[in-house]
């Protein structure tokens, strides 16, 4: 038995530090096996749902694609123009192909963090491996979809993403359930390695359902002069979502930015944080979070900046908008300076829609409902995220489409 299995076994009953504790036995592990096929031959209810989270079944404007349904890899491909520049496959296949990948596997996320990391090791259901080769600037985004088609299913994926030195890439990941799925559990381990001088922009869009539980566990290592931008969008209801991704700015002049947009509705429970550890000389971190809570939703928006090196600097900005008296937003910003010369700052604000703003827009001819909708949309504006133009337009379109449905 491997060491990671042994550690996982010891942690399989360990509750997570945050979020409601889940009974893992209440979820099913049984599912049909999906056969490998072109995306165009997938049922329309799957391709349509995937499109909602930015996954194009026609693969237009995408450099590479990975598509997993439940526990099966149904498709992977690399566009001709990008062959020899990027690699895209399941992590199972990648581990068979590359012995060295073992050094990356559980290299950043501890397998015994809690029962969910343990579950991902003990009941591992694939996941994707994306690697951008040294010096390659991939002009189109890579896309991956983690789809759940069976009700009450448990899916545990483990993803490894490597941006080799001086490479540049954008990745869009969509996690989504079939319309017939009401409950289930998704556990996603994601480990990012952003090497010297590389730039990785990762965008994850979640589209769950009211009784679904989600436990991502993410960590990134950012080397010298490398940049890691992590965008997270969750606009649909979810029973419980708890995640606290961490990025280690290990290299000198490394850069990390976490952007998130959360819209909590129904009885959603969202506990979402971002942690930046500044370990490199001149490293920089930025966390920007927008949270909207309505109905009976509870949102815990956390941020944790740790300064471990001189000349490092990070800022955290969290804004919460409450649309209902029965909803809750708690902003929890934390700063920990460990050395002289690190500069950590934060600003957090939680409030309701300002009447002054609504009335101002009404004075421009909008109805009260239109004015409120405009303010909420504006609150979720992603232009503050500092994204490349093509990605910004794409995410904006996705956010607007979803916002239109939820508002």
């Amino acid at each position, binding site marked *: 038995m491997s060491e990671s299995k042994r550690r996982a076994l010891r942690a399989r009953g360990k509750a997570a530090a945050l979020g409601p504790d889940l009974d893992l036995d209440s979820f099913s592990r049984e599912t049909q096996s999906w056969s490998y096929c072109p995306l165009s031959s997938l049922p329309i209810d799957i391709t349509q749902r995937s499109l909602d989270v930015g996954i194009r079944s026609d693969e237009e404007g995408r450099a590479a694609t990975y598509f997993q349904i439940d526990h099966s890899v149904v498709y992977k491909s690399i566009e001709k123009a990008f062959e020899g520049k990027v690699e895209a496959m399941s992590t199972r296949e990648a581990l068979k192909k590359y012995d060295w990948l073992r050094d990356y596997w559980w290299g950043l996320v501890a397998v015994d963090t809690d029962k969910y990391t343990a579950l991902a090791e003990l009941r591992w259901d694939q996941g994707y491996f994306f690697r951008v080769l040294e010096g390659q600037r991939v002009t189109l985004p890579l896309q991956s979809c983690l789809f759940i088609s069976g009700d009450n299913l448990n899916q545990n994926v483990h993803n490894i993403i490597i941006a080799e030195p001086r490479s540049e890439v954008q990745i869009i990941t969509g996690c989504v359930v079939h319309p017939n799925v009401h409950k289930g559990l998704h556990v996603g381990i994601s480990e990012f390695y952003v090497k010297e001088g590389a730039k990785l922009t990762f965008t994850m869009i979640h589209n769950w359902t009211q009784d679904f539980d989600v436990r991502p566990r993410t960590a990134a290592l950012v080397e010298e002069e490398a940049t890691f931008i992590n965008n997270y969008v969750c606009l649909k209801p979810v029973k419980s979502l708890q995640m606290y991704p961490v990025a280690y700015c290990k290299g000198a002049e490394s850069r990390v930015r976490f952007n998130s947009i959360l819209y909590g509705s129904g009885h959603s429970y969202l506990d979402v944080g971002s942690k930046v550890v500044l370990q490199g000389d001149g490293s920089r971190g930025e966390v920007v979070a927008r949270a909207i809570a309505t109905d009976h939703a509870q949102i815990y928006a956390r941020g944790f900046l740790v300064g471990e090196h001189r000349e490092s600097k990070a800022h955290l900005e969290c*804004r919460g908008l409450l649309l209902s008296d029965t909803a809750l937003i708690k902003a929890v910003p934390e700063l920990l300076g460990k050395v002289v010369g690190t500069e950590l700052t934060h600003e957090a604000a939680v409030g309701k829609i*300002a*009447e*002054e*703003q609504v*009335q*101002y*827009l*009404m*004075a*421009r*001819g*909008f*109805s*009260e409902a239109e004015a409120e909708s*405009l*303010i909420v*949309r*504006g*609150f*979720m*504006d992603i*232009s503050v995220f500092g994204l490349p133009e093509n990605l910004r337009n794409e995410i904006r379109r996705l956010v607007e489409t979803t916002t239109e449905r939820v508002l």
Partner: protein
Amino acid sequence: MVKTVCALKIEDLSVEVGGKRILTDVDLEVPRGEVHILFGPNGSGKTSLIMSILGLSAYRVVSGKIWFDGRDITSLPINERVRTGIGVAFQSPPTIRGVKLGDIIRSFVGEGPEAEKKEHGLIETINFPRAILERDLNLGFSGGELKRSEVLQVLAQEPDFVILDEPDSGVDVENLELTGNVINNFLKERSALLITHLGYILRYVDADLAHVIINGTVVCSGKPLVILSQIMREGYRWCEKCPRVREERCELGEKPRL
């Protein structure tokens, strides 16, 4: 333009905010095609009168009526009042993150090549760069940008009746000249009520009549430049000493026409 029909008529209006009386028995009439000025010291009720005309929820009408084009708008929601043809440039507009100035302008001019051309023309008129349209509404705007943004929105709306709340405060000389000329040009064949504290805008705008408001009441009306020169000479203390305020008679101005 026929000047005999009343664009805005305020009749015996009393208003409270948070239980405190801020306007008392205000009577004011702006005939169609006329530009009127509202003078008054700080805290006299100028902006409160504008907010009451607009119908902001904090401003509770205790008695009286507001008529626009012969229609009683006293109980209408803000947006419906505006749709009757009233456009307002606010003195201190709020910041709204994520809502772009362009969103507002496009809500008035629409989409498509023709609308785009019109939008282009408007921002050129007000001497803004195109990029201003993609900025969050009033976020980080300078004093001059705020005023020009407000005027730009009114230009895009093309209302019949224009209310401008201190378009000349906090604006540098170049911007004052620019906005003043734009406003004057726009107000031709329109009706308007302009609030001004120091009267700088009168260098550029041809006004028909001025009113002075003191302690929430319109105390006199008269020729704008005559009233302004008196205020400039003696300040609003003169108004407090004015016989009309004390004895319902003003030697300088005219009796309000209502």
